[in-house]
């Protein structure tokens, strides 16, 4: 029995040490901390904060797509603040509408073409928190960017 696309996404996302949660829009609204960076168009929540060298604690950012076969989220990071928030937060929390999860990597081809036809764009495929195995091939998570990543899959979006 083939697992659903959501199941596949969660499996792959968990394999790169992401925490994955399924929840409703309402439940999401209750969880979000008011003082963290947020960019969640689906529930009209935007919170901009100062981001400097030391980074920020958490960032709640809505992704454009999720790719099930690799556990990847696709984020339009053209906005500099959003980009900084996603690269300099200790804990990156992605808000992923269930309806935006696709199965295959190649499905994003059209989106890439459309977005990059514009004058400028910066699209990020993110699969887990920043990692390295450069020292004796021992895997360490949290090199330059986030040390932790969570994905909140919103099942009624």
């Amino acid at each position, binding site marked *: 029995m083939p697992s659903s696309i959501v199941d596949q996404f969660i499996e792959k996302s968990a394999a790169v040490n992401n925490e994955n949660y399924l929840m409703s829009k309402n439940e999401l609204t209750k969880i979000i901390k008011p003082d963290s960076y947020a960019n969640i168009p689906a529930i009209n929540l935007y919170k901009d904060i100062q981001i400097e060298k030391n980074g920020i604690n958490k960032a709640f950012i809505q992704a454009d797509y999720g790719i099930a076969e690799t556990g990847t989220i696709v984020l339009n990071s*053209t906005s500099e603040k959003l980009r900084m928030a996603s*690269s300099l937060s200790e804990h990156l929390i992605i808000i992923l509408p269930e309806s935006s999860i696709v199965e295959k990597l190649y499905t994003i081809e059209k989106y*890439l*073409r459309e977005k990059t036809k514009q004058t*400028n764009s910066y699209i*990020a*495929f993110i*699969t887990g928190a920043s990692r390295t195995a450069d020292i004796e091939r021992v895997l*360490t998570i949290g090199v330059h960017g*986030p040390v932790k990543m969570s994905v909140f899959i919103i099942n009624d979006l």
Partner: protein
Amino acid sequence: MNSFKDSINSKLNDEVLYNNLKNFATSYKKSRSAALTGLDFENLRMEINNRRTYSPDYLETLFHRFKNNAEKAGAKVYRAKTGTDACRYITEVCKTHNTEYIVKSKSMTSEEIRLNDFLEKENLKPVETDLGEWILQIAGEHPSHMVMPAIHKSREQVAEILSKFTGRKIDKDNIDEMVKIAREYLRDYYFKAGVGITGANVAVAETGTIATVTNEGNARLSTTIPPVHIVLLGYEKLVEDFKTALDIINILPKSATGQDISTYVTWIKGCSPSANNPTGDKEVHYVFLDNGRLAFFQHPEFREALKCIRCGSCANICPPYEMVGGHVFGHIYIGAIGLILTALYHGEDKAKDILKLCIGCKACSSICPAGIDLQGIISKLKVITGERYGINPVKKTIHSTIIPNTGVFSTALKTASFFQKPLIAADGKHLKTLPFMPENKDFRTLPAIASDFFTEKFKKHYKKQPDFEKKVLFYPGCAVEYFYPEMGEALIKILNKAGVKVDIPKKPVCCGLPAIASGDGKSGKKIIEKNLKQMGNPEDYDSYLVLCPSCGMAVKEEFPEYTADKPDSYKLSADIAQKTLSLGMFLKKENISLNVKNNAKVTYHTPCHQKRGLGFSAEDMLEEILGNNFVPLEDSDVCCGFGGTYSIDFAGISSGILDKKIENIRKTEAEIVVTDCPGCIMQIEGGLLKRGINTKVIHLSEFIENNLEIM
């Protein structure tokens, strides 16, 4: 050559390197295999290869498409002819912005042109942000691998480097702490730097977009914080469209690290908003590097090397690389592709020695996700540098004068077989330790030269075979002719039982591979022409059989290649090539049923030139026949380390590779190792005998004759 040999020896004695690379090789194979599950790798790499074959004109078209899109978006595009040209342009941009620090994400292209050295001479401070590269930078060293630059370092060594740099005491076992220190320092640099420099994994012409691929996220930060972004890339990074770009992004991490996808894939088009830049937008420069690429795009064979996607798998799978690491097996680029790119970008002179490190096992050609026949190109470059820089004079004499002259060669060996008598060991088939053999080359018990050569035996005993309708021509090759005639005899007996008549060439002539592999193309060609005169008429033979797959490969590939300029000879060699099979392949083709006669526990070593040359392995066949008596050999298709004269020229590497093969054989606890290459037998049997290990090594032909019966 002396300092080259010295550097090899010092690496062979580097225990940290040995363990790191050996452990990596095992885990890499497993994770790559897992990542490729469900993917038709062969099909995908063929597609990628086909789609990236550009004519020089089309490449220009792609470039201009990219350039137009990039410039419309406000970016600057510069065409750098040479490395120095690129370095100068980049320096000027940095100086214009008055920056002291520059952050860099990993770029092999920047290593190729030694960009950091140039920038430092201009009093600029480039900081590598990839953890492995940064550690090496502060240690004053260079990377030894394209994907894991510091794989040659132990945690103790890294702790020492960081300790010296930071002035702090660092616990050698606390890798988390070391990574945290790097995070702290590098975070600082991202904000201090006025310019970020990256490479690009692909440059998509259809919209003027580049993609960078990292696990650390250092390319993201390098392209986000500083107000200026410089992209240094070779023309070969250009692809037409996002489909091809995604093909590369798809296969790259699976081949490089065995991951489904890298943690960060970043697609950048134009000039993103940048608060640090007074204009509000990032200033973006694309520096396209030539450095020889545009010329090589015109070369029918070398342009294949430009399809490399920098995955590093040709290093990961290379047995000699595993023994000596990237500081020896390469120059700036490492691994199999490194030998080639060194010749193309850094000059034949820099490549001539390291090209010799290739053992010819073809593992690289079979693993390359870009579909490049790496070993084929290396082989050509060896002939080219051989012609230019000369070949070992002793080898040259042997290949050009002695071997092609059958009379002289046979007489020499006959004489040797007579004089070796006092050196023959108790078993009558091998030599005792040779008194004049240097200790570091004495890692195998060698076979004695046969007292009766194969062709002589054939003429004495096998001329009168029954007149079967089906005929084959058996090409013995030097190993069977002079050392292992009994293998050839076994073949004749087996085939006669199966109703097949066996002819042989009138006189024994070497296939030419030893000459070609040593870089002597001329002698190779001479001897190939000599062979063709006595291979009979392909119309008369069902198949041409070999017991030595290296000879088989020579007949299939080198014979047509070296007669390409003569239509008659070419047609003959192509016809013969089509019919060339190993014994195992012939038995399978003829559907000859075999039954096992006894209970011996058997394992199988797959010769490189069987699986990756002739395209067949007898493993499945043996497993089917032997059932529970068959034990699969771990890394069966990894080279045994023979490589012909390689085992003498680079004895240390050869014996190191053999050690690993023997370790795997011991793990099977098999009584018999079957293989179908006399060279492998010479190597593996020689190594086992030297160590006093009882396991028998036997050719498939003799195994079938002794242990199986034909139905």
